[in-house]
C-alpha cells in the first residue's frame, strides 16, 4: 500500500484510479464511435446485412473494448514498469545524494525520507514516514524557524532557498542546518508535495569560519609582509652604505638612495639596467664579474671582497663588497643584494694609522733606548761625582775632626762649609738618581715588617737636635693602636726625614711642628704639619715638579734640594699609598698627609 501511494506520487497524477476514470470516459466515447461505425458500415454494406450483423457487431465491439481494455492493462503494466524505473531512478538519486532529503505532504507529514536522512538524524524509517515533521525524533524538529518556513513562507512563495537554522538537536547536538524547499503542485488533484532538503553546514560553517579566520590572518600577514617590505625598503634607504639589489640576470631591481648619491647616477638610468652597464659601464669590473657570476652562484654569499677600480664618475676608489643571494619565498626568482662600501678613505686612514703606529713604535723604542741611556748616564754620573765627593767629604771630615792636628777657628769654620756643601751635593746626587730610578720603574722596594711606633719615635729623635736649635715645639700624636706595616724601611724613613726636615726648615724660630699617626682601615695615615711659611695657592701645582724652592728668609739656597717632596710622593706611591699636601696659603703652615697600606700591594 505504501508503495502504491508512493507510485501515485511519483507518477504525478497518472494513478490507476484516474486511469480507470479516463477509460470510462473513453468507453462512453466508444459508444459514439460505435454508432458512427454503424453508420459507416450501413453506408458501406447493405442495410439488411447491417441489422443481421447488429449482434455480431456488438459482440465485436465488446470484444474490441475488452481487447482495448487488455491493451490498457498491458499499457498500465508497462507504465507501472516505467514508473518503477523512474521511481527506482529517483530513489537512487535521492539515496545517492549525501544531503538528507525529506518529502512531506500538504499536512506536513512525512511521505518519503532519503537514506542519508536516517543516517544523519539517527532515526528509523518506521518512526518517520507518516509522522508530522515536527514530531520526528522526539520532537526535535519542532523548530520555530522551520514552522515559519513551512507554514508561512512556503505557501506564499512555493520555494525557499538556503535558510539557515541553528538548533540543538537531541540526537546530534547543536547543528546549523541549511534548508531548501520546493513545493510541488501535482498536475492532477490539488495535493501538494513539499520536498525539503536539509544540509548540515555545521562543519562547513566551522570550515568557513576557519577560512575567514585564515583569510583575516593572511590579511594580517600580508599587511605585516607589506610592512616588512616597507621596513626593509626604508632600511635600504636609510643606511649610509650604498645598496643595490639585482635580479638573477644581474639587472638592477632596486637601489638605495645613498647609491644614487654616491655614484652620481639617476634612478631612470639605473633600474632595469645590467649592473655592468651602470654609469657608462664603469661597473664593468672583472673582479665584480667574477664575484657575481662565479663565486655567488656557488656560495650564495660573499663578504668583504675588496675591489679597487677607477670609476668614471668618482675616480679611483677601493670598494668593499658584501653580497647575499636571497631565494624569494614565492616564485623561484633569486635576488642578489649587494652592499658597496667605499673604504678608500678608511684605507687611507688605516694606512696612516699603520704608519703612525710604526712611527710610534719607533718612537717608543727610541724612548726606551733614551730612558735606558738616561739612567745609565745618571748612574755613571752618580759614580763619577761620588768619587771626587768621597775625597772632598772625606778629607774635610778628617780636617774638621782635627785627626792630624788642630785648626784655628776660621779654618775649622771654612772646612765645615766645605763639608756641608759636599754633603748637600751628595744628597742632590742621590735624590736625582732616586727620582730617575722611580721614573724608569727601576726603584725596587725591600719589604719588611716595620714597627711604625718606634720608627716614628726614632725619626723624631733624629731631628730633635735641629728642632731644639730653632727653638721649635714638636708635637707627636701617635695612636696607641698604630700597627706595624709592610714597607721598605730606608725609604719610609727617608720620606719621614724629608718631611720633618722640610717642616723644620720652613718654620720660623719659636714655631710649632708636629707629626700625627693613626690607623685608617687597611692603612695608616701619617701627617707632618708645621706653622711655617706654607705655600701660596698659585704655587701648589709646582711643588711636585722638582727643584721648586720656596724663597724665604728662613731657608737659604744651600738648604734643601727641591726634590724632597716629589721624591717622597713617589716613594709613598711606590708603597701603594697616597700623598697630599695642604696649605691654607702663604705663612699659614702646611700639612703633608700620606697613607701607607698595612699590607703592601707591591706596586711596581
Amino acid at each position, binding site marked *: 500500500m505504501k508503495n502504491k501511494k508512493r507510485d501515485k506520487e511519483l507518477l504525478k497524477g497518472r494513478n490507476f484510479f484516474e486511469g480507470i476514470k479516463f477509460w470510462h470516459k473513453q468507453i462512453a466515447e466508444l459508444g459514439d464511435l460505435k454508432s458512427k461505425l454503424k453508420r459507416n458500415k450501413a453506408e458501406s454494406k447493405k442495410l439488411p446485412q447491417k441489422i443481421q450483423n447488429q449482434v455480431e457487431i456488438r459482440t465485436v465491439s465488446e470484444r474490441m473494448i475488452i481487447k482495448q481494455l487488455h491493451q490498457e492493462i498491458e499499457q498500465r503494466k508497462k507504465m507501472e514498469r516505467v514508473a518503477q524505473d523512474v521511481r527506482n531512478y529517483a530513489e537512487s538519486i535521492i539515496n545517492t545524494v549525501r544531503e538528507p532529503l525529506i518529502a512531506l505532504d500538504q499536512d506536513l507529514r512525512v511521505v518519503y525520507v532519503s537514506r542519508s536522512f536516517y543516517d544523519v538524524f539517527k532515526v528509523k524509517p518506521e518512526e518517520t514516514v507518516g509522522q508530522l515533521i515536527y514530531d520526528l525524533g522526539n520532537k526535535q524538529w519542532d523548530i520555530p524557524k522551520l514552522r515559519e518556513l513551512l507554514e508561512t513562507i512556503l505557501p506564499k512563495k512555493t520555494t525557499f532557498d538556503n535558510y539557515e537554522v541553528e538548533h540543538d538537536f537531541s540526537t546530534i547536538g547543536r547543528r546549523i542546518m541549511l534548508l531548501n524547499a520546493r513545493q510541488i503542485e501535482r498536475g492532477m488533484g490539488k495535493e501538494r508535495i513539499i520536498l525539503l532538503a536539509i544540509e548540515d553546514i555545521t562543519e562547513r560553517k566551522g570550515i568557513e569560519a576557519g577560512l575567514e579566520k585564515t583569510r583575516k590572518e593572511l590579511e594580517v600577514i600580508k599587511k605585516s609582509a607589506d610592512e616588512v617590505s616597507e621596513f626593509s625598503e626604508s632600511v635600504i634607504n636609510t643606511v649610509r652604505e650604498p645598496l643595490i639589489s639585482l635580479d638573477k640576470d644581474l639587472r638592477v631591481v632596486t637601489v638605495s638612495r645613498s647609491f644614487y648619491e654616491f655614484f652620481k647616477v639617476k634612478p631612470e638610468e639605473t633600474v632595469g639596467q645590467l649592473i655592468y652597464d651602470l654609469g657608462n659601464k664603469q661597473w664593468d669590473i672583472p673582479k665584480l664579474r667574477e664575484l657575481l657570476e662565479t663565486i655567488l652562484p656557488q656560495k650564495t654569499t660573499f663578504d668583504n671582497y675588496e675591489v679597487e677600480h677607477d670609476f668614471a664618475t668618482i675616480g679611483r676608489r677601493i670598494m668593499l663588497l658584501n653580497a647575499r643571494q636571497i631565494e624569494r619565498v614565492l616564485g623561484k626568482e633569486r635576488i642578489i643584494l649587494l652592499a658597496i662600501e667605499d673604504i678608500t678613505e678608511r684605507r687611507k686612514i688605516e694606512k696612516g694609522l699603520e704608519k703612525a703606529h710604526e712611527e710610534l713604535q719607533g718612537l717608543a723604542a727610541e724612548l726606551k733606548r733614551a730612558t735606558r741611556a738616561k739612567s745609565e748616564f745618571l*748612574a755613571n754620573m*752618580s*759614580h*763619577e761625582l*761620588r*768619587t*771626587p*765627593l*768621597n*775625597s*772632598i*767629604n*772625606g*778629607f774635610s*771630615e*778628617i780636617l774638621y*775632626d782635627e*785627626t*792630624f792636628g788642630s785648626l784655628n777657628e776660621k779654618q775649622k769654620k771654612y772646612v765645615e762649609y766645605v763639608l756641608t756643601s*759636599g754633603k748637600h751635593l*751628595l744628597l742632590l746626587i742621590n735624590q736625582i*738618581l732616586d727620582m730617575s730610578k722611580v721614573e724608569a720603574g727601576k726603584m725596587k722596594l725591600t719589604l719588611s715588617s716595620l714597627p711604625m711606633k718606634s720608627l716614628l719615635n726614632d725619626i723624631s729623635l733624629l731631628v730633635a737636635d735641629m728642632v731644639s736649635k730653632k727653638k721649635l715645639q714638636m708635637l707627636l700624636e701617635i695612636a696607641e693602636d698604630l700597627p706595624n706595616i709592610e714597607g721598605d724601611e730606608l725609604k719610609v724613613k727617608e720620606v719621614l726625614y724629608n718631611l720633618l726636615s722640610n717642616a723644620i726648615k720652613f718654620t720660623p724660630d719659636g714655631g710649632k711642628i708636629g707629626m700625627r699617626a693613626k690607623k685608617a682601615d687597611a692603612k695608616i695615615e701619617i701627617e707632618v704639619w708645621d706653622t711655617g711659611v706654607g705655600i701660596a695657592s698659585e704655587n701648589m701645582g709646582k711643588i711636585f715638579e722638582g727643584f721648586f724652592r720656596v724663597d724665604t728668609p728662613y731657608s737659604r739656597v744651600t738648604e734643601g734640594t727641591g726634590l724632597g717632596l716629589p721624591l717622597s710622593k713617589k716613594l709613598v706611591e711606590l708603597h701603594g699609598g697616597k700623598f697630599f699636601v695642604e696649605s691654607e696659603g702663604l705663612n699659614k703652615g702646611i700639612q703633608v698627609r700620606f697613607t701607607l697600606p698595612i699590607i703592601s700591594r707591591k706596586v711596581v
Partner: protein
Amino acid sequence: MGKRALIVDDNGNNLMLEKDLLEVAGFEVLVAQDASSGIAIARKEKPDIVIMDVRLPDMRGSEAAKILRQDKETGNIPIVFVTASVMESELKEAKTIANSGFIGKPINTRTFVTEINQFIKG
C-alpha cells in the same frame, strides 16, 4: 800586634784617605793601584783584610777577588768592596764572593774603621 790591610784603588785620593783613616786606627796599610799588583801583594803579604774598588783599570774587582779565592793562601782573606757605583749589577757582583762585604762611596770617615774591623772579626 797591628792588623794589616791591603787597599786596591786606582784613585790616589781615595787610597790616601782610606790609608790615613786605617793608619790612624793603628793598621799597617799596603796599597796597590791595579788588580794584578794587588793580587801579587796579597799573595806575598797575606794581609788581614783586602779593601778593593769594584772598578779597577785592569779587571773588575770581583774578578780579582775570585783569583784570590782560588789561591789557597789568600782564599780566606775577607774582602771589602768600596764603590761609588749604585748599579745593581755591581752590588750583585760583590755578593757572589764568599766572605766579602760592601761599603758605599763616599765613605763615612767616622765609621769607616769600625766597619772594616767588623769584617775582620766576622
